[in-house]
């Protein structure tokens, strides 16, 4: 809460969250969120419709308030999983809202607005980093004509929720809140590098999609302590300057493509 600036925002804006919830109705936003309530962590007892207390209502409130607060973003699928995690972690509705704001509004560069330009950019940035650091994988992806978005969009959109084991995701999020969005590339590069041999066996697009699912499972991802050490050693140097430059060039390229 403190490091991400969420606490400061919450202290500076007393009552704001509740004002948002009591604001004017927004039917489109409400329907979109409601459609996903039953489909957010359906395996978690606390998110069941019949649970008491039921976190679906909390989730609905956080997402609705956020959609009203940041109207440029509204609600994007994937935010339900992120908000759901924040609720489970903080056990506090209003704190979850401010943490979601820290993530979506400040830490992640424009991932969820309708054009999803920041997200598309970061997928391309990962592609560039793989080409540079793991050229064999880069070449294979290119040869198969697989889009990076097919392979990793879920990683970026859900920030590894329901992709990696819970403990590992929580450790990654610690870094995300502390150090910013660069960590996502470290995690992605580490997963790819660690399983390079397996990925290189792929012979078709569905095949490589399947491999990218496989590499998030298994003991490597579960051993979160070792995993966190690896993400800082395996991908090698990854300076903020490099990431910033790549983001600029990839973004320009995407905008030029229309």
């Amino acid at each position: 809460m403190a490091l991400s600036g969420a606490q400061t925002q919450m202290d500076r804006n007393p009552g704001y969250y509740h004002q948002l919830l009591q604001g004017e109705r927004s039917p489109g936003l409400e329907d979109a969120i409601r459609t996903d309530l039953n489909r957010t962590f359906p395996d978690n007892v606390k998110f069941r419709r019949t649970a008491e207390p039921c976190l679906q209502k909390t989730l609905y409130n956080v997402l609705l308030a956020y959609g009203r607060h940041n109207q440029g973003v509204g609600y994007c699928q994937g935010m339900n999983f992120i908000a759901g995690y924040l609720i489970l972690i903080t056990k506090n509705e209003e704190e979850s809202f401010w943490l979601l704001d820290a993530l979506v509004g400040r830490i992640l560069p424009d991932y969820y607005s309708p054009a999803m330009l920041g997200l598309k950019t970061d997928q391309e940035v990962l592609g560039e980093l793989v080409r540079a650091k793991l050229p064999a994988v880069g070449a294979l992806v290119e040869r198969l004509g697989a889009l990076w978005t097919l392979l990793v969009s879920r990683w970026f959109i859900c920030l590894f929720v329901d992709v990696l084991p819970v403990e590992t995701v929580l450790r990654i999020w610690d870094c995300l809140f502390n150090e910013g969005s660069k960590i996502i590339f470290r995690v992605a590069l580490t997963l790819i590098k660690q399983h390079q041999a397996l990925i290189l066996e792929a012979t078709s697009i569905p095949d490589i999609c399947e491999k990218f699912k496989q590499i998030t499972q298994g003991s490597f991802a579960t051993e979160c302590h070792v995993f966190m050490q690896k993400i800082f050693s395996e991908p090698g140097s990854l300076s903020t300057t490099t990431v910033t430059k790549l983001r600029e060039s990839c973004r320009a390229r995407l905008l030029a493509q229309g």
Partner: protein
Amino acid sequence: MGSEQSSVRMDEDVLTTLKILIIGESGVGKSSLLLRFTVDTFDPELAATIGVDFKVKTISMDGNKVKLAIWNTAGQERLRTLTPRYYRSAQGVILLYDVTRRDTFVILNNWLNELETYCARNDIVNMLLGNTVDKENREFDRNKGLKFARKHSMFFVEASAKTCDGVQCAFEELVEKIIQTPGLWESETQSKGVKLSHREEGHGGAACGSY
């Protein structure tokens, strides 16, 4: 469904590989339909699909094996902007709506526009599928769907991924129509320059690894 590896091994006697898309508004049951067709199960508690998912299934059609790569997307519009290329090179599309949800039907025109914009070919086989017919609070009767489908030259099926009703027959009808339109899949095979070594006279097809 067997694993991808096992279906790859069977490629030698596969007539062709077809790419089929399942599209439609968020929450109409695209993932449930795919799950029912590929592994014959129903999970009422399926998480929302983020990004793109696919399953592979090989079916027999008049004695020929046809491998289907069935792609399933997230329903929300902004997530679809991630994958416009996903529409290209598809031979068949199943457009879903939920017969109990008016919003998922009235928006079908938008989906057709999207298909027109992104699909590379115009002879693609389209099917309209009204899902969740097992539910009692139906908003649209069969005729309404049928009328829409006819107007837009689409096949029409009502189905329930939950009860299995109509699911198998929807896919079979779609695949049959694609196979009856050889230009759709033969040109695909040849334009990719795949070796037609397993092709036999009068057999009229080829193994193909394209998606």
